[in-house]
């Protein structure tokens, strides 16, 4: 579950070109002018490769400009296990906070999509691999409870290497906590849209990410419970091409649709319009 592996070093870090003006596309190996990439929501115009983006950039690409009102931004993790591996967890965590200007691996709040208000939580892979610790679990749960109390639809954009192992059992229990909050949201008859982007794995996949009324993935995102390396080691076989990618999950009936980044806002708006529209089909 908490396999999050070395292979998950953010692309943008790896492929940095010295001047910072150009970016190499991991999909087609072309070197792209950064300004063009930004304009295209960090999607390669040539091959459609979706670069990883920060939670803030994601929110800008998803909701009506200026409509995002952040909530619970102060919540951060502690170090209840006093965990140390090759580095102290508290040091690692502080570095992540300093670098990202975020307090943990997601932003939560309310926002507008078209004329629909929604509760929204967006994860950030650049913050410790989007790993789920107690702060993240608390923020997702608070947002879900807020949505239930205020009868709002909920959108969660997931990207995660899995559980934050440094928080041990507390990180595992966030799966239970978030899922229980979603059970109440669902029971109230409210809509939850789960959006999965590359990569969504481990404990996050095996909890709220899979509980959407509608589950949408960006193209070619790795979406799995156990990571490919773990599976290869277990079964000692090469994995088939495209295994655990969005299109594979679509084919196997696990998700509803694969939607490119440029169309995501419109798709979410359509779904919210659909459930909020006063007119219902006549019997």
């Amino acid at each position, binding site marked *: 579950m908490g396999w999050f592996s070395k292979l998950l070093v953010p692309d943008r870090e790896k492929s940095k070109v010295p001047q910072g003006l150009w970016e190499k596309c991991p999909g087609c190996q072309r070197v792209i002018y950064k300004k063009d990439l930004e304009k295209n929501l960090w999607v390669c115009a040539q091959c459609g490769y979706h670069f990883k983006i920060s939670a803030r950039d994601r929110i800008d690409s998803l909701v009506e400009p200026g409509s995002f009102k952040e909530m619970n931004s102060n919540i951060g993790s502690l170090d209840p296990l006093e965990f140390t591996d090759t580095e102290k967890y508290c040091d690692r965590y502080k570095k992540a906070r300093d670098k990202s200007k975020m307090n943990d691996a997601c932003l939560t709040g309310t926002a507008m999509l078209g004329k629909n208000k929604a509760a929204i939580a967006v994860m950030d892979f650049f913050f410790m691999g989007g790993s789920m610790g107690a702060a993240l679990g608390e923020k997702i749960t608070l947002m879900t409870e807020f949505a239930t109390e205020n009868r709002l639809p909920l959108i969660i954009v997931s990207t995660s290497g899995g559980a934050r192992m440094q928080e041990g059992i507390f990180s595992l229990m966030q799966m239970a906590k978030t899922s229980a909050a979603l059970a109440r949201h669902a029971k109230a008859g409210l809509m939850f849209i789960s959006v999965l982007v590359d990569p969504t794995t481990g404990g996050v996949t095996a909890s709220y990410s*899979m509980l959407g009324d509608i589950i949408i993935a960006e193209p070619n995102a790795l979406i799995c419970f156990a990571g490919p390396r773990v599976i290869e080691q277990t079964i000692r076989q090469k994995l088939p091409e495209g295994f655990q990618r969005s299109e594979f999950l679509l084919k*196997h009936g696990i998700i509803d649709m694969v939607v490119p980044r440029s169309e995501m806002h419109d798709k979410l708006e359509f779904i919210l319009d659909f459930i909020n529209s006063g007119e219902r089909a006549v019997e």
Partner: protein
Amino acid sequence: MTETLQANLISLEEKLNEIDSQISKFKQISADEGIKLNEVVEILERRKLQLLDELDAWQKTLIARHKDRPLACDYINGIFTNFTPMCGDRHIMDDHAIVAGMAYLEGRPVVIVAQDKGRTTEEKVLRNFGMPHPEGYRKALRVMKFAEKFNRPIITFIDTPGAYPGIEAEERGQALAIAENLREMSQLAVPIIAVVIGEGGSGGALALSIADRILMLKYSIYSVISPEGCASILFRDAGKAPLAAAALKLTADDLYGFAIIDQIINEPAGGSHRDPKSTIENVKAALISNLDDLCRVDKNELLNGRYKKFRNMGVFCSFDN
């Protein structure tokens, strides 16, 4: 590598056996010759306890996985009467990593859902070493919904290295199956007790553990990841599993200290495999007292209590910025 990591448990067991044989030798001499050797016996007993006090997280992990440790089926056979298995997820197959069915606990009708690793090689293969596929989790949920429909409390036994990581498991939605169990179990309107009897391996264990009471045997473990997995990812060396085991704080004592579990069930010195019968009795007594408590609680209160229990898990802070 696993062999060297296991060597320290074997040497511990040898020491325990040696002390035990010394104790019985002294008792024999004392009986044969009519000499009082109580003091010597007491000293030896104390030494034995000292040895066990010093057990570290890794040694406890090895005991939790011990080849002779009682398995779910041993508890089912030893505690309940008229166990009647229920099979299948009604879609794909019957996953033998999960054992489920109806039974009586001293006359109380209950529904059991358990993970069993298998004892013999054949059983291990049949039960996939206790690693369920999605069908196992769906079978579990089907049986638990049956329990809710007919108002029967649920008892789960947890003992798994984790949910199975394989091609078919992913294709058929392993993550989805676990997630649905987490969500649905939080709403089941009957008492649920989970007992961790061996290895509580991550999400694969959690998927049967959304319970009103979580009990753990003294030498069982419950963790977000195996010590080996954690060692190879964070410590960059699978051989550092003993270090990772300590860092993860995965023993029953640790989790009780964190208020994640409700009760530690005692085991005989050195582990339940050294005296399965007394362990089974201890588990039975714990189940009866917890079940009788829970059955007195009103349904709404039960569900609110369960929600709050998991809602409060997690330590976080508020920054001033």
